């Protein structure tokens, strides 16, 4: 047996078993009629027809598009401006932007959403201030499309900050220097040189954020549903929450989402390939000279502080306030007298909190380990154009077409039918995580391998090392910084994502993000805030480790 041939086959088989059944079952589920017991009784197009006729179906598609476009624009504006200020100017207090980004990387999205709902809500400080100065009325109606876009936009701005920061950092300053020397003002230079150079990267990123926003669940569920604004993800979720669950309709909606995302991904691929053509990164080892903002320095610093307050400080203060109250109340002097540690005590003493924290860590670590192990083979073979490399790459990144909630439906359909005792255990969540985050592991390894020159492997081969020995003794050790960064990244996002696990978690197999969602739905805001804060501290430690590792290993954060 030749390991060069068998390895891709084995890896390919594992990937196929993971990736293909969910997609097939989803399509199958959207095309069959089922009886009350959930067994298939025949083929039908009725689920797709009902998408056209069902009230609100077209509206949820339109809402999805508006919501995603709006939040993408906002996050690009906020995150992009911040990235530029931090990477390319001499604005003061730039570290604050990095700090809020690291902490928000470790915090489950849903915690941000809960905090924001409180801050922007009818009794939050903003409306409270408005009311006390005007006597009546509300400044912000958070449970609205505007509120959804606002919160989602701020949720994604740290990601935009990181990715565009990398773009700005790597940009060649020669052209900007030339413009400045020729007498162009700062604004003209930015407009005509910096932005134009970064435009392909910005467009690619915009599409990336748009795709993630189409699959977003937390904000549409918590902010949208009370305002009766449904998007595709919440429509799928609701179809699964009726008795009996409307699997057919959920699957049909899911298939529509998969098609939308697949089309967008196609364009994303072309855009990001295009972005590389524009790359002006050279081997020159210097950092571009930062723009001197002159008197505007302090205005820029104020913007950075404002962003820090909005993205990190206010939500944190809101959570601390909620955690210290026995019942929810607005910020007030009276509330200061009723502070209590009861919620923290409950969280620490009740055994189910420790159980679910342990579950989360276990399943996220397991998924990250499995993914990086699989990705080491797949990424290497793909990057080196080994036999079947292209096919393996496509298989491993197939799951990018699944929004989290859709993957939840698909994986559930598969493992309700497979006679393995997996449904209702942590295993089903682990499998879903592996499927969902496999592409990220791939990106880390692939990018890592591209940085290694082939001559090392060739030398080993000449010296008589076999295929797998080369992987084990040469490639793996050199890849370890990328592998560790990839592992930490997957560990972090697995603990952050709610949508994948929300349909798969069972009472005996809870994970942190779902537990936080349950606590919100079940009316335990105080314990939610207390648990969320403790969890955030833990995850921030991991996020710091990830950040240091990424810097050290020279890998690009977020694997892009």
């Amino acid at each position, binding site marked *: 047996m030749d390991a060069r041939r068998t390895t891709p086959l084995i890896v390919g088989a594992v990937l196929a078993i993971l990736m293909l059944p969910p997609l097939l079952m989803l399509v199958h589920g959207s095309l069959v009629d089922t009886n009350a017991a959930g067994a298939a009784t025949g083929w039908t197009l009725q689920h797709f027809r009902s998408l056209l006729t069902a009230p609100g179906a077209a509206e949820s598609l339109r809402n999805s598009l508006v919501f995603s476009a709006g939040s993408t624009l906002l996050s690009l504006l906020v995150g992009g401006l911040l990235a530029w200020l931090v990477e390319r100017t001499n604005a003061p207090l730039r570290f604050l932007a990095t700090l809020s980004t690291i902490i928000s990387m470790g915090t489950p999205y849903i915690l941000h959403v809960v905090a924001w709902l409180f801050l922007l809500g009818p009794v939050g400080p903003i409306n409270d201030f408005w009311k006390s100065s005007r006597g009546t009325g509300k400044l912000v109606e958070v449970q609205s499309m505007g509120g959804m876009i606002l919160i989602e936009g701020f949720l994604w701005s740290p990601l935009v900050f990181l990715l565009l920061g990398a773009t700005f950092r790597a940009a060649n300053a020669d052209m900007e220097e030339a413009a400045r020397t020729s007498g162009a003002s700062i604004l003209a230079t930015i407009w005509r040189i910096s932005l134009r150079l970064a435009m392909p990267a910005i467009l690619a990123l915009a599409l990336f954020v748009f795709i993630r926003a189409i699959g977003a669940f937390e904000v549409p569920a918590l902010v949208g549903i009370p305002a009766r604004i449904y998007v595709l993800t919440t429509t799928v979720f609701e179809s699964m929450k009726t008795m009996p669950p409307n699997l057919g309709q959920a699957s049909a909606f899911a298939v529509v989402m998969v098609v939308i995302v697949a089309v967008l991904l196609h364009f994303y691929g072309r855009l990001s390939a295009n972005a590389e053509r524009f790359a002006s990164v050279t081997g020159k080892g210097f950092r571009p000279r930062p723009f001197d903002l002159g008197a505007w320095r302090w205005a820029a610093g104020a913007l950075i502080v404002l962003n820090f307050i909005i993205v990190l400080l206010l939500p944190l203060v809101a959570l601390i306030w909620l955690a210290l109250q026995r019942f929810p*109340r*607005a910020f007030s002097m009276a509330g200061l007298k009723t502070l209590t540690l009861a919620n923290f005590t409950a969280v620490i003493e009740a*055994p*189910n909190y420790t159980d679910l924290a342990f579950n989360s860590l276990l399943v996220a670590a397991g998924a990250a380990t499995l993914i990086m192990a699989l990705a080491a083979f797949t990424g290497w073979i793909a990057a080196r154009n080994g036999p079947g490399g292209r096919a393996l790459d496509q298989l491993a990144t197939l799951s990018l077409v699944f929004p989290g909630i859709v993957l939840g439906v698909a994986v559930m359909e598969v493992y*309700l039918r497979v*006679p393995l005792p997996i449904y209702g255990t942590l295993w089903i969540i682990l499998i879903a995580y592996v499927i969902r985050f496999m592409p990220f592991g791939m990106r880390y390894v692939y990018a890592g391998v591209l940085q290694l020159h082939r001559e090392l492997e060739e030398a080993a081969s000449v010296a008589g090392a076999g295929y797998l020995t080369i992987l084990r003794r040469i490639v793996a050790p050199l890849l370890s910084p990328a592998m560790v960064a990839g592992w930490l990244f997957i560990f972090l996002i697995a603990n952050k994502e709610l949508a994948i696990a929300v349909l798969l978690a069972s009472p*005996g197999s809870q994970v942190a993000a779902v537990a936080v969602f349950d606590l919100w739905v*079940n*009316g335990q805001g105080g314990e939610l805030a207390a648990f969320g804060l403790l969890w955030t501290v833990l995850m921030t430690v991991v996020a710091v480790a990830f950040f240091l590792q990424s810097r050290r290993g020279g890998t690009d954060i977020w694997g892009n």
Partner: protein
Amino acid sequence: MKRILVALLAMAIGGPAQAAGADAALIEAARKEGQVVWYSTLIVNQITRPLALAFEKKYPGIKVQYSRATSTDVALKITGEARAGRIQADIFDGSNTVFPLGDADLVESYPVESAKGYPPELRDANGTWTALNVYFMTAGYNTDLVKGADIPKSFDDLLNPKWAGKMAWTTDPTVNGPPGFIQNILALKGEAVGMAYLKALAAQKVVNIPAAQRVVLDKVIAGEFPIGLMIFNHHAAISAEQGAPVAWARLEPFPSNANMISMVKGAPHPNAAKLFLEFVLSVEGQEEVARDLYLPAHPTVRAKVAELKPDAGGFKARTVTPDMLRAGEKGWTAIYQDQFR
């Protein structure tokens, strides 16, 4: 003489010893199973956790695993587990959980010994369910925001334009949510007038909160909404006891129903499940229910705040029986979907 004494002694302790003996066998078997898994619809920190702790204290070595979800969610989870051939739940409760699960043949018949004295409307003769506690639904209001003459005293008061957009309720599609409100109005006012009322109420733009009644009440307490509809009156009492600015209004009749607790067919820990049912429905278990300010189902256990029940509270209630629920639920839910979503 000595022998007679021994015989008498044996007789004296024989009776109770026998009952305790059956118990002892159950306890022993339950202890071997080590745990009981309870899918609850009750609010965890208010009653689920205290009940679980009380059970664990009485029967050390048997752990209670609990979780909370809506009635529909609990039913969905158990049917899913059954479909996958891997049932994990032993016990469940809820206002209408037992019916879909009964239809799917997933409910075990176990007439609970300690609930023998319960009135017939609070226990199923076949032992598929027993009432763990009873509910009285009404409106809750923030006492800082709603005072004196503003406090709604009848359902018609809710149509006052000043409450437009200022009332909220849960999306829970059960008799404890909007469908329960709807059936109450239809029964009170008749079909035609009732529907006209519901349309007028829908025009008031009642805000749907996709969360438990407890969350709605918390939003009332926080001042986000002055009025919350379809909240449990005892929740208002629990919060008021902690100093929250909240009280419950008297919109009569209060829709009332039982929270039914049952055992899953094919439960992985059947003995622990039976022991748990025996405990929570016994006087001791029901006293814990009362201590947590919930309204016990046991005929001799008194509610801690007596005014939460119609007799002492002096309010009219209208009970929704399981039969009424089964017959009407679909229609009420349809009206809710049509008018209020």
